[in-house]
């Protein structure tokens, strides 16, 4: 059954010139099954982060809508947790307090001890034991995003929305955290919608990859199925012919095909 339905969503922004509107993307339609990991890849400006915000309820679509397990999305909610590119941790709170804020909100019936135990478990899961009382400013980008992931996973949302979660993390750490994300997702099997422009990351993590043409007026060009067995290992994937085929296909699309804009359909 279709779990998350993105139903012909169009987004216009007021034009930079001041009059009229510019279309960021139009008529984007796809569905995500429960437990599926779907990643959207496209150039900057194709509106993929905007679409993620619309699913999150933080922005409104110009036309079309998003339906999550039968209910139309109108506003933000606990069933859709976002992991932000810039982490968006509360800088005046410690690591522990940041996660606790989310756990408390997600499980209002829990006792203080239950909440604290849950927070501590997630801190351990993401390998931040010992940094509980540090503030985000004292952490590296990678550690901050571990907090962001723990905060999101700890609330057990129906859908995880990952907005270029590793873009601001150095390349070496990125791989490690991608592996951690994969491990956490394998255990929880949340439905995930991720946005990225890192092709390797998309193939490594996703069940399907949505390719967007370039904006303005971007469209969903293609949904690519990733038929690679899980668990996937970076070291083994490099030599896998299917991996190479996918990688070439997507890169070729990004280099050649995505510029065709709306005409591609």
């Amino acid at each position, binding site marked *: 059954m279709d779990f998350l339905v993105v139903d012909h969503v169009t987004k216009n922004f007021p034009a930079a010139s001041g009059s009229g509107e510019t279309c960021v993307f139009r008529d984007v339609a796809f569905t995500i099954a429960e437990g599926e990991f779907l990643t959207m890849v496209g150039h900057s400006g194709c509106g993929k982060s905007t679409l993620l915000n619309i699913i*999150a*309820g*933080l922005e409104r679509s110009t036309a079309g809508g998003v339906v999550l397990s039968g209910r139309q999305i109108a*506003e*933000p*909610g*606990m069933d*859709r*947790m*976002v992991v*932000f590119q*810039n982490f*968006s941790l*509360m*800088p*005046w*709170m410690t690591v522990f307090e940041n996660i606790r*804020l*989310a756990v408390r*909100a*997600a499980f209002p019936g829990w006792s203080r001890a239950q909440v604290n135990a849950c927070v501590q478990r997630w801190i351990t899961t993401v390998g931040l034991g010992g940094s509980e009382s540090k*503030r*985000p*400013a004292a952490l590296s980008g990678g550690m901050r995003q571990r907090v962001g992931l723990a905060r999101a996973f700890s*609330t057990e949302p129906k859908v995880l929305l990952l907005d270029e979660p590793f873009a601001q993390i150095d390349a070496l750490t990125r791989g490690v955290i991608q592996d951690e994300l994969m491990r956490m997702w394998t255990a929880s099997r949340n439905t995930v919608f991720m946005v990225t422009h890192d092709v390797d990351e998309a193939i490594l993590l996703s069940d399907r990859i949505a390719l967007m043409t370039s904006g303005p007026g971007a469209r969903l060009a293609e949904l690519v199925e990733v038929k690679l067995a899980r668990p996937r290992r970076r070291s083994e994937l490099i030599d896998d012919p299917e991996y190479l085929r996918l990688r070439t296909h997507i890169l070729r699309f990004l280099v050649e095909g995505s510029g065709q804009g709306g005409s591609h359909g």
Partner: protein
Amino acid sequence: MRHDRARVMLISLLLGTIFVGAWQAAVVRQPKGKGLPGPAAVAVEAWETLRHPFYDNGPNDKGIGLQLGASLGRLVVGYVAGSAVAIMLGVTLGLSPVLYRAVNPYIQVLKPVSPLAWMPLFLYTLKDSGQSAILVIFMSSLWPTLANTAFGVASIKRDYLNVAAILQLGWLRRLVTVVLPAAAPAIVAGLRISIGSAWIAIVAAEMLIGGTGIGYFVWNEWNNLQLTSVIFAILAIGLIGVLLDAGLGRLSRALAYSE
């Protein structure tokens, strides 16, 4: 850094010594009992006053401790009330850009009014000089905190409010865990300006209302031509001002955060 610090202290002490020396030199040749008192006379006065800070010989003769205590008491009541109103109003305005713009012209007109200008209205309405003085402090505590809070809340990063929205925090929890801590540095900066202007206003207000307080003390000593006491009171007012500011400076450091 450490080297600099020693140098700063040395220059500071040197300047102080030069000032006090020049002052003493200027007054040493004037006939006794006339002209401005010198630093030695003020020091003697200070010693005498500080030995018995809390004596009470009736309405016109009280120790400096009692006078400062009376002023600080008014300050606390007026300042706490003014700050509470300013923060509540500031948060409301900061969260609503439309209301902010609608109310802002009135704030701009009222802000530059000396809090003492309200005194006649307060005296007329309340018919109580003590309460009127507290209201003057209330007025002088209001504007800097109000303006800073509204600005601080209005410029909270969208990301933090987005997280609060996703977590569907209720308005009270959102206020306590997100809005106030995010705007805290701006709010405390306002509180710090406010307490300075409130402490400035209290002296003038007490000169007008009489009775008790350090402002009244200064005016009373002027009427008695006790300039040594006036100079000592000036120093005392300055030192208390420093302490008040240092207290809020500490609060400001405790609530500061870096991204």
